[in-house]
């Protein structure tokens, strides 16, 4: 059935394991011997050998990246079951309910491997890809987030950390700014962990009317498939296979990275949303990893359908592309719209209005078999279920017992000096050089952005808040949580801490947490110790989220973040969204006035493992802070009540650098100092000031409302002192502990940014 000029037959029947592996390698399929055997026995039953298109299609669908074959069993066990009733829908992104008619669509995913090979293009298309996932739900994208993890050490054979960092930041800037969606949240983390395995975890949040939510399943015959957007080229071929293997030399094949064009994406968003709003779209899916092959297969299989596709009808960038290349190309800015025959012309007219190339390439058919033609020759004929469903792996896992060392560092001689050094640590000090290159006010709906405070001396915020509707006061809060330093020591507690941070950040602005999306980063899952860490992390996420009753509605898994002997810790980046009932009540961390009372919600801890303080002192290991979701829930939701009732001026969560750094950050945007007495906290002074206890906040309460605030918070609030003055002064009874001027705090925090 294949044409010798276009598509060739791959002889796999009766071949031995070595032959099979050779074929897999030569065709860059990335399939194991067992998987090749499974394919071979299928085609034996069909009494024929496969075509190259068929083998490529199988390889895409069965890749780790597309199929989650190593993680799915565990994700089902630990993640998928949490708070199911709160997830409105799942597909390319997840949805939670915001109010009676609006839902929030959101997702975070990795673009790690492409960014390691080609930082600029990899990061840019990461933004492009996540935007399409949100669009696939019928939602208007309203915000982009990016959590970046950069190495600090040059590794031979790989680009320098600075080169990677500049490339990634420029890629996000040029794509996000051009497509006109604000980049409002995320973070940058520096550690040797990420040399040379840079991590780029990009998220997107969208808003959709509940009656405009689109499914991605086609469950009727005769539904036409329209490809719309960018033309298909040879860029990004085998991207998913590349992302499903460890990096070897740094000389990975650059053609596996797609090329992005935000100037095509921007009108594509308008056109797709317009068609959807007019009720012309039956189902919708974006073309990402695996290209047409994954999308057509999954769309039809989800509805139990088969179908036919004519590859020569796909608009192409370049002539002479082979059928298999068209079928698996990961060219950017493409969407697949399933449309009823009666609406096809209307959809094509809308595309024409926006100058977007679009073509009908096939339709659904009963029977569950997909047939693909190229110039009237059949080049693929497979059951969609077989094509899209690989064997799942329950890979071997082992847990390495680690001895916990509890360090007792030398008592610091000068606390002011320690504080200032923590403030200028790369992981604390301002990220303005990057964040101010991202447009965070475009669309005019950013209520709280990455910075807040007096213009010209703004400090960082905990979450961003966006207006969800032009004519309502309801808002959506967006943040992310992760701590690779904790996870490196204890993946289980690290998982719990990531949930804690996400919830803390949402509460800080006055948002009720609604849902999570998880981007899970790890090394090679074929190694038992990594699989063991992966499962530990999932257990941690599960134990916290299930008690909080907050669902994970979307996410992705990125394995194989390894190169040579170097690999990343196994850790999650969580994208969290929350509901702000009335944006006019949301709060920021900057102190608002002198003379108000400062309270600590929570208590410091003696578990300083992974803390910024210990990292500065180069103390490895130790016990990491423990997050108890029950305590988080009690404190957090009471604090939410206080914010809703207008009792507080400012709120900031305790994270890197502990109470001392959090307090300093509250002076940044306000130029209002504070005087605190920490004798009620007990503990050694450095532990009291620099430990990073979970579920903790600093709160500045409006004058005269202390009583009401204490009534709501109960025993969880500890009075520490008052705002005011041009410095922070910390005492322990009569003893002077620390003094630092507002001016020196901001100078150190702004270090390196001019």
């Amino acid at each position, binding site marked *: 059935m294949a044409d010798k000029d276009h598509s060739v037959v791959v002889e796999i029947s009766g071949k031995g394991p070595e032959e099979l592996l050779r074929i897999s390698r030569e065709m860059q399929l990335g399939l194991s011997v067992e998987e090749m055997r499974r394919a071979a026995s299928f085609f034996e039953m069909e009494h024929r050998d496969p075509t190259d298109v068929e083998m490529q299609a199988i390889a895409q669908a069965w890749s780790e990246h597309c199929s989650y074959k190593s993680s799915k069993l565990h994700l089902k066990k630990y993640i998928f079951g949490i708070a199911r009733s709160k997830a409105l829908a799942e597909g390319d992104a997840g949805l939670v309910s915001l109010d009676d008619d609006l839902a929030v669509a959101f997702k975070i995913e990795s673009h790690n491997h492409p960014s390691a090979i080609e930082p600029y293009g990899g990061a840019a298309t990461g933004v492009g890809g996540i935007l399409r996932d949100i669009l696939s739900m019928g939602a208007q994208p309203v915000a982009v987030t990016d959590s970046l993890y950069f190495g600090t050490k040059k590794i031979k054979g790989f680009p320098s950390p600075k080169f990677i960092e500049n490339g990634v930041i420029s890629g996000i800037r040029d794509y996000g700014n051009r497509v*006109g969606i604000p980049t409002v949240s995320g973070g940058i983390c520096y550690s040797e962990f990420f040399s040379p395995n840079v991590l780029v975890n990009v998220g997107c949040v969208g808003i959709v009317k509940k009656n405009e939510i689109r499914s991605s399943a086609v469950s009727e015959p005769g539904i036409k498939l329209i490809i719309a957007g960018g033309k298909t080229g040879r860029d990004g071929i085998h991207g998913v296979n590349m992302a499903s293997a460890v990096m070897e030399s740094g000389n990975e094949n650059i053609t596996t990275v797609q090329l992005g064009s935000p100037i095509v994406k921007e009108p594509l968003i308008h056109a797709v949303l317009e068609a959807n709003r007019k009720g012309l779209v039956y189902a919708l899916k974006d073309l990402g990893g695996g290209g047409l092959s994954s999308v057509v297969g999954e769309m039809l299989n989800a509805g139990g359908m088969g179908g036919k596709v004519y590859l020569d009808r796909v608009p192409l960038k370049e002539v002479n592309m082979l059928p298999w290349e068209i079928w698996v190309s990961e060219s950017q800015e493409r969407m697949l719209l399933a449309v009823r025959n009666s609406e096809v012309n209307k959809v094509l007219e809308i595309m024409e209005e926006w100058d977007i190339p679009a073509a009908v390439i096939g339709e659904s058919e009963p029977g569950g078999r997909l047939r693909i033609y190229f110039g009237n020759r059949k080049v693929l004929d497979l059951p969609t279920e077989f094509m899209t469903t690989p064997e799942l792996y329950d890979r071997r896992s082992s847990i390495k017992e680690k001895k916990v060392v509890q360090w007792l560092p030398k008592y610091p001689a000068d606390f002011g000096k320690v504080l200032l050094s923590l403030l200028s640590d790369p992981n604390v000090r301002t990220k303005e050089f990057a964040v101010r290159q991202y447009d965070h006010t475009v*669309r005019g709906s950013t209520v709280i952005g990455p910075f807040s405070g007096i213009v010209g001396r703004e400090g960082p915020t905990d979450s961003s808040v966006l207006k969800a509707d032009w004519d309502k006061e309801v808002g959506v809060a967006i943040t992310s949580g992760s701590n690779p330093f904790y996870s490196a020591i204890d993946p289980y507690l690290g998982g719990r801490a990531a949930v804690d941070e996400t919830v803390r950040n949402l509460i800080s602005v006055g948002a009720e947490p609604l849902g999570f999306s998880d981007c899970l980063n790890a090394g090679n899952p074929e190694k038992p110790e990594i699989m063991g860490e992966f499962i530990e992390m999932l257990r941690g996420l599960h134990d916290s989220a299930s008690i909080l009753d907050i669902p994970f509605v979307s996410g992705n898994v990125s394995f194989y973040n390894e190169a040579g002997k170097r690999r990343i810790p196994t850790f999650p980046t969580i994208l969290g969204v929350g509901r702000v009932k009335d944006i006019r009540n949301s709060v920021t961390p900057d102190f608002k006035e002198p003379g108000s009372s400062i309270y600590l919600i929570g208590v410091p801890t003696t578990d300083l493992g992974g803390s910024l303080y210990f990292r500065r002192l180069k103390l490895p290991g130790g016990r990491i802070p423990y997050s108890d979701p029950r305590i988080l829930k009690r404190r957090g939701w009471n604090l939410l009540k206080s914010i809703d009732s207008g009792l507080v001026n400012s709120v900031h969560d305790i994270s890197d650098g502990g109470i001392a750094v959090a307090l300093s950050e509250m002076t940044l945007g306000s130029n209002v100092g504070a005087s605190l007495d920490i004798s009620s906290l007990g503990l050694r002074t450095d532990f009291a000031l620099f430990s990073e206890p979970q579920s903790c906040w600093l709160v500045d309460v409006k004058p005269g409302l202390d009583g009401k605030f204490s009534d709501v918070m109960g025993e969880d609030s500890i009075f520490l002192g008052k705002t005011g003055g041009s410095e922070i002064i910390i005492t322990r009874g009569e003893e002077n502990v620390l003094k630092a001027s507002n001016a020196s705090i901001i100078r150190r925090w702004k270090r390196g940014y001019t």
Partner: protein
Amino acid sequence: MKRDVRVAILTMEGTNNEEEAYQSFRHSDSSPEIVHLKKFENRTRRLDSYDVLFFPGGFSAGDYVRAGAVMAARIRAKIKRDLENFVEDGRPVMGSCNGFQVLVELGLIPDTGKSYAVEAALAPNASNRFEARTVYLNVRRGNCLFLDGFSDGEIIKLPIAHSEGRFVPRDSDVLRRIVKEGLNVLTYVSGSGKEEGYPWNPNGSEHNIAGICNRRGNVLGVMPHPERIFSRFTETDWTRERRGYDIGNRFFESAVRFIREKY
């Protein structure tokens, strides 16, 4: 009955600030419509059926050549005469950010020589990077119809987000005429109202110029984004200052009022 004020918000591929511009005009009691440049080119829409023309920001055609250059070239090729009639008729035309760049590329501002020659450019920021921040601006309203709602010397706050915003006049004559005629209606200042350097002047503009109006007072180009502040809850420091008005709308309300009074 109040006269309906029709506003065309002009877009093409890469324009991406049309939504907030649309909302701003909607909040300013007018009837905005987002119109693709194509529709003026193929005559399915006519410019003279609108009262106000707004050029939103973004990256028209990707800004891969020079900011605003491609959009201006397309306009000049097909609807130059219509646009000049619109301007000469005295109707309000405003552009922000990329829209400012387009207006300068079209020669509609500063237009000190009356011949629509290109007299200035918006060059890459002196910092050589994209800058997203809030700036303070000093208002010198002159006869600019968009600034009717402000007082002279008033200091206002608006967001900026651009990588090519450094106003560079063609020569010293142009600059002299701009200053002499008071066409530099908006200038970057510090929090205390003084003209200072970076970051208060975020892009290194000559004379701290942030906005330019033509002599007739009906064409205004600004680098900042008043259209993003149609609600005061989108200012960066709104949690510190509880004022009772939405600063961006004053630009658009002035234009709408102008139309209702004059036409």
